[in-house]
Structure formats: structure tokens, C-alpha cells
């Protein structure tokens, strides 16, 4: 097997440059806002990877965003901008809570996440295939509808009678075993890595994956080659739905201490958006997504330490993520940088 090192190296270097730009711009904004960027970043990275506990927090934070990144990544490989991961996560979490309370085991919870993910993502898929609705608009509208519908279910249908701050919990028999005691890291992390590996296998080693990638690369060529782009669109959405549904399910089944949805859906909000950045930095490649997911997990895990030790609002990492994605959008970042340096 011939490994195309140059083909891998360039996107890798460009992603790294984007990350550096994000961190530098974040630092400049920190300085302007009156914080010490050095102190903030030291606290952040020390909190995220400075100890075994930090690593455990990093990997547990990476779990849902690797899965939601796969949603966007599978879409992008098919030529779609599927931004619907966010809403799908909510329903994955709700379905997992409901099903595990009926049958108390992990498999039922995962199945709940998968079914919810497929069901919710089927809507933009069919709107696209039947009515030609642009998926960017439809998935964003569905995210907002999902937000309010899920909020209604969380507040009115499954509130915890003993604790007004959360919903009913996943029963103990359906919780993922903890890997490191006292941390939030459970075997749910394995689900996200396995999902990424399966996605890689499907996309690059099956006929379906070939069809998905070809229709993403060039729709006209796909049709000429006897591939039905509509089939590719539907599969892309459904596979993506499974991933985000699983993100919601693993979050309530494998992230102590609550094992439930907390007030205002705070513990399941935002993963869909994070996933977009993770996928773009991982160049929409499942294996790249594992690594960029862990990097973004680092930012999330370290943000708490940064807030405590440097007093910087933890939302700062979202800003860094945004800058990184804008930088990723700059084409030929490496060549551009070389040109600037040469001048």
C-alpha cells in the first residue's frame, strides 16, 4: 500500500496553522479584554493535559464532539453542509433516557439515540430530495424547532420530581462503566472512536461509501457513472443522524454525575456547533476528526480550569474555535503564509 504522505501532510500543516492562528487571535482578544493571555493559556493546557485527571476530562469532552463532527464530516464528503447535528443531539439524549427507563440496559439506550437520530435527520433528507430545500436553511430551522420541542419535553414531560434542576435519570443498569474513578471519563469514549473507525471503513472501503464520496466530489460524474445522488443524500443524512443521536445518548449514559438532562439543556447544548469546527479542522476525515476532536476536547476541558485559575470566562474557547474555522476557510493557507514570509 502506497501512503501519500504529501497528500496528508499539507492538510495537517494547514490545520495546525489554523489552530495557531486561533490561539494567537484569542490571545490578542484576551489581552484587549484585560486578561493575561499567558496565564489563561497555561491554566487551560495545564488543566486539560497536565495530569491524568486532565486527560480523562479531555477525552470525555471529546466524546460527543467527535460524534457530532462525524455528522458534518459525512455530509461534507457527500457535498452537503449538514448543520443539523445540534438538534439531533437533543432528541438522541431524550430517547436514550426514555428507552433506558423502559429497559435498563446500554444497548437500548444506544438504540434510542440511533432511532431518534435517524427519525429527525430524515426530515432535512426528504426535504432536500423531494423539494430541493437547501440543507443549510432546513437544518438550522430544524435545530431551532428541536430546541423548543426538546425544551418542552424536558420541562413538561420528563422532569425529575425530586430535583427540579434536571430530568429523570438513566437507570444505573444502563450507564457506561467509568474508566477513571472520580473523573467524567467512561467507556462511552470508545463508542465515539469506534463510530469514527466504522465511518472511515464505510466511506473508503464499501461501495456505498464510494457512491457517497463520488456524488460529493462531482454530482454530474456520479450520475454519469450510474450513481443515484438522491440515494447518496438520504444515506448521508441518515448516517449523520445516527452519529449525533449517539452523541446525545452517550452524553446522558456515560457522563457522570447527572446521567440526565440538566436545566436549560445546558449539558447537551452546543455539541452540534462544536462538531462543525472539529470536522473542518479534521478536514472532514473520520481519522482526522478523532484527533481534532481530542484537541477541541482539550479546549473544553481546560476552559473550566482557566476560568477558575485565571478568571477568564470559559466561553473564550468558543471564540478561539470560531477563529480557527474562519482560518480553515482560507484556501491554500500554507502557500499564502509562504508567500508572506518570502516577502
Amino acid at each position: 500500500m502506497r501512503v501519500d504522505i504529501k497528500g496528508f501532510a499539507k492538510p495537517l500543516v494547514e490545520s495546525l496553522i489554523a489552530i495557531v492562528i486561533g490561539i494567537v487571535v484569542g490571545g490578542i482578544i484576551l489581552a484587549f479584554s484585560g486578561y493575561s493571555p499567558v496565564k489563561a493559556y497555561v491554566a487551560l493546557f495545564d488543566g486539560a493535559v497536565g495530569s491524568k485527571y486532565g486527560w480523562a476530562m479531555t477525552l470525555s469532552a471529546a466524546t460527543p464532539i467527535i460524534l457530532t463532527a462525524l455528522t458534518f464530516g459525512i455530509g461534507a464528503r457527500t457535498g452537503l453542509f449538514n448543520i443539523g447535528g445540534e438538534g439531533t443531539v437533543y432528541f438522541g439524549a431524550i430517547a436514550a433516557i426514555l428507552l433506558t427507563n423502559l429497559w435498563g440496559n446500554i444497548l437500548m439506550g444506544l438504540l434510542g439515540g440511533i432511532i431518534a437520530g435517524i427519525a429527525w435527520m430524515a426530515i432535512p433528507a426528504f426535504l432536500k430530495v423531494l423539494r430541493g430545500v437547501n440543507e443549510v436553511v432546513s437544518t438550522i430551522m430544524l435545530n431551532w424547532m428541536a430546541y423548543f420541542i426538546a425544551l418542552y419535553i424536558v420541562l413538561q414531560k420528563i422532569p425529575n420530581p425530586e430535583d427540579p434542576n434536571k430530568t429523570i435519570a438513566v437507570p444505573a443498569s444502563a450507564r457506561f462503566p467509568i474508566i477513571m474513578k472520580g473523573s467524567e471519563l467512561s467507556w462511552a469514549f470508545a463508542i465515539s472512536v469506534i463510530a469514527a473507525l466504522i465511518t472511515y471503513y464505510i466511506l473508503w472501503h464499501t461501495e456505498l461509501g464510494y457512491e457517497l464520496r463520488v456524488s460529493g466530489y462531482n454530482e454530474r460524474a456520479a450520475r454519469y457513472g450510474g450513481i443515484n445522488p438522491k440515494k447518496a443524500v438520504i444515506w448521508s443524512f441518515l448516517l449523520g443522524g445516527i452519529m449525533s443521536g449517539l452523541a446525545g445518548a452517550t452524553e446522558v449514559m456515560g457522563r457522570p454525575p447527572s446521567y440526565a438532562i440538566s436545566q436549560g439543556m445546558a449539558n447537551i447544548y452546543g455539541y452540534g456547533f462544536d462538531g462543525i469546527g472539529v470536522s473542518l479542522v479534521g478536514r472532514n476525515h473520520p481519522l482526522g476528526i478523532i484527533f481534532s476532536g481530542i484537541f477541541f476536547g482539550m479546549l473544553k476541558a481546560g476552559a473550566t480550569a482557566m476560568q477558575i485559575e485565571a478568571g477568564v470566562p470559559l466561553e473564550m474557547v468558543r471564540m478561539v474555535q470560531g477563529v480557527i474555522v474562519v482560518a480553515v476557510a482560507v484556501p491554500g493557507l500554507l502557500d499564502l503564509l509562504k508567500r508572506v514570509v518570502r516577502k
Partner: protein
Amino acid sequence: MIEAVISTLIGALTAMVPLVLTSVGAVVSERAGVVNIGYEGILLMSAFFGAIFAEITGSPWIGLLGGAFIGMLLGMLHGFITVYLKGDHVIPGIGVNLLALGVVAFGIPAYWGTAGQHQVPTNFRVTPIINTPYGSLSPMVLVTIAIAILTHWVLFRTPLGLRIRAVGENPEAADALGINVERYRFLATVYGATLAGLGGAFMSVDWLGTVTKQLSAGRGFIALANMVFSGWNPLRALLGGFIFGFFDNLSVWVRTNPEVQRIIPWQFVATLPYLVTLIIVAGIIGKVRPPKADGKPYKRE
């Protein structure tokens, strides 16, 4: 009854402002061939900075202009990446939307020291031109209508408009005629983003009087849907904006009205603007045609 009609009318006209400004801006940008899905982020960031400008200077009008300025800067960033560097049109928009989530979520506690929400003091709001017991009308409603009409006139009745449309329909031909494709595309993008910035600042310093990280609430995307609904026509975008504004206003009103909440859960009404957007977009696709070179980077051969 008449009170309800007046208050609904005023509410819809007010909620229309950010939607119409953004849609009209998006129409011009896409007529020139540049797709920008970053309006959601532009609305959010300009709402945030608009409130800051208004509070620093004590003038809501400077707040509005400040918001437009932030929109302009973000439009220049988008135009630089898409027009001059020939980058993908969608990804920088996604980036700006994500960036906005971060800037506002970080900025509110960092600048005002409050968690999650900031109330803009009422003395920094724009003075209404019409005051009724059932609501008041902001002069920005008239400004918005004027901008839509003026943009329509420029786009379809002037040589400038002809050139803008030419670079979006057939950049090769436009180039051959000596039109600077890149310059027109860049300026059209900046114009679109500037209008969105004005709309964003309107939300914080005039209409809702608050800054939250969910302030834009999908309006940037509803505006894009409205642009499709309009068939890339500013006057029809004005009409569509009024319809979307009605449902937008309805959902804002219900959320603050306990009487209604007893009858129907507010969350269901809150989904209406998005549901209506989906239904309308699904219903009219195929009947409208975007500019031919929309979203396609133009490289001189």
C-alpha cells in the same frame, strides 16, 4: 379588536427590520455571485457591539452605525476570502457564525460582568416616531423600507445595478466588457454584510433592548430563506420580511404573555417562525432561479 390589529401591525413591522435589511443585503450579495451564510453571526456580533457603542457614546444612532461598521468589517473578511482568495463561500460563513457564538458568550460576562444577558438601558434606545398605547413605531422601520426600495431601484434601474447583476450572472462576459468582477463582487458582499450589521444593532439598541448569546435566534437564516422566497428581488424581500416578521413578532409576544401560555405551551408557538420558513421554502423551490454564477468563485482564465 382595533387595538389588536394596530399592535400586531406595529409588532410585525418592527420584527421585519432585521429580516428585511439582511435579506436585501443578501439579495445584492448573491446577485453579484457571492453566497454568505454568515449573516446569523453578523447579526449577533453587531447586536453586541452596537449596544456597546450606544452605551459608550450615549447615542442609539451611533450604536446602529457601529453595528453597521462591524457588519462591514465582517463583510470585508468574507469578501476577501471568497472573492480575492477564491475560497469556498460556505465555510467562512460557518466560521463567522461560530465566532459570533464565542464573541458574544465571552463578551457579555467579560464586558458587563453579567452572566448570559445584558439589558440595554432604555435611555440608549431610539426615540419612536409614532407612539400609540398599543406599541410604538421606530424610525428604523421607515429607514428599512426606504433602503429596500432604493436598493431595488439601483439594482434594476441603474448601470451600477446592471453591472452588479452581470458579475453574478455571467462574470466572463462582464470581465470581457471591462467590468472589474472582483471589485463589484467585493463591494456587493460588503454592502450586504453592512445592512445585516445595521439590522443586528437594531435588535439590541432599539427593538429587544437586550444582548444575549441567542439574540439572533436564527434570523440570519430566516433572512436567507426570505431571499429565496423573494426570488432575489429586494421589493419582494420587503413583502416576505413582513410575513416572516409577523410570525417572529408572534413568537416573541407569546413568550412574554402568561395568558396565552396557560392555553398553549409557549415552546410550540416559538417554533412557528422556523416551521413557517421551512414550509414556505419547501413550497416555492423550483419556481425561482438563483443568479447563474451564484456561489462560484471567478478566476480569470
